[in-house]
């Protein structure tokens, strides 16, 4: 076969392969998954994180504004220290509260941020003080049964 025709086919093949890779990167796995340098980290402490996992989304008003970067257990306070990596484009007041929520009945767990009213905003390595732990189903059932029993006794 002619040399140039061969080169042409191989060139087309390589272009098609790279296009397929780009399709996978951009359309299948949104490129936002690649961490941009434009982010800042804040720490929130929870009594119980339930089934929260690293890389779980952090949402405010339902919009993803960051991801869970790291989860550690603090052996001094016996709390879970969760590091949130938030997008630099979004600034939150200092008294923002964080709660662990579940999407749907059996869905994945995520952190919901509720903005406060402070005029100062959270900076890198700041701490979110107002937190609400995950709802553990067993505790909820226990409370319900306890409440029912209380009702029964006059």
């Amino acid at each position, binding site marked *: 076969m002619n040399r140039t025709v061969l080169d042409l086919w191989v060139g087309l093949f390589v272009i098609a392969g790279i296009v*397929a*890779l780009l399709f996978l990167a951009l359309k299948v796995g949104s490129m936002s998954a*690649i961490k941009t340098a434009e982010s800042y980290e804040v720490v929130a402490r929870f009594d119980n994180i339930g089934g929260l996992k690293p890389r779980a989304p952090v949402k405010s008003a339902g919009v993803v504004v960051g991801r869970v970067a790291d989860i550690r257990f603090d052996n001094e306070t016996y709390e879970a220290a969760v590091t949130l990596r938030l997008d630099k484009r979004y600034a939150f007041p200092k008294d923002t509260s964080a709660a662990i929520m579940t999407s749907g009945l059996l869905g994945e767990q995520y952190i919901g941020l509720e903005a406060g009213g402070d005029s100062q905003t959270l900076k890198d390595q700041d701490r979110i003080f107002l937190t609400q732990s995950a709802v553990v189903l067993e505790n909820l059932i226990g409370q319900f049964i306890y409440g029912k029993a209380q009702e029964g006794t006059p």
Partner: protein
Amino acid sequence: MLRQSIENLGNRTIHGVWRMGFAARFFVAILLHSGTAFRRFGLTIREMYFSGVLSLIIILVSGLFVGMVLGLQGYETLQTYGSEEALGILVALSLVRELGPVVAALLFASRAGSAITAEIGLMKATEQLSAMEMMAVDPIARVVAPRFWAGVISMPLLAALFSAMGIFGGYLVGVQLIGVDEGSFWSQMQSAVDFEQDILNGVIKSVVFGVAITTIALFEGYDAPPTAEGVSGATTRTVVTSSLAVLALDFVLTAFMFRGI
């Protein structure tokens, strides 16, 4: 009788170890003589045409059908849990992580690997390789290394094309034929598939498979007995050994990548 069987065992062990050592030295020799494959890149391009471009049809068609079947089967299972929107996740993750690299590698082994073995084996049987040596042309640099690099470059491209075609097939069946919501199909897929964790690991897998398949194919061809039977036996061994190697390597790589052992 007993002595005979022990001798047989010893003979096979020695032969096996010798072949392993020869294969390892052969692999190192390919790497050391790769200079020509890049200096005269035309040689590599020629081989990429034969092992990459000519494998396109089978890779694209099987990718499309694997994706379509995944769409059908995934929908049947997911709808019993009322979560057919997760079809996009199922199709994309199974293709990008596993099926894309592995099935493309198996097809590549049988389509291109066998051809490489037959070609090199026949070159050896007709003493073309010896003739090159007589002319002071190193057959490893001139014949073997370009085929190796062509396979290593082609394999990830073929795997990516397979995955992309498969996701398109899953989209055709899931969204166009069955009627899963298009928006949630893509958006759930995008939120679940991670670039580094899933796509990059899939590409790394396919590069490793490319190295394994082409090395086995070239070695079997180079080591084939110079007879018609020898070449046919070597071709069969290429397909069997490289398919098994792909599956075993896939298990090991998956264990490292997704379980973090």
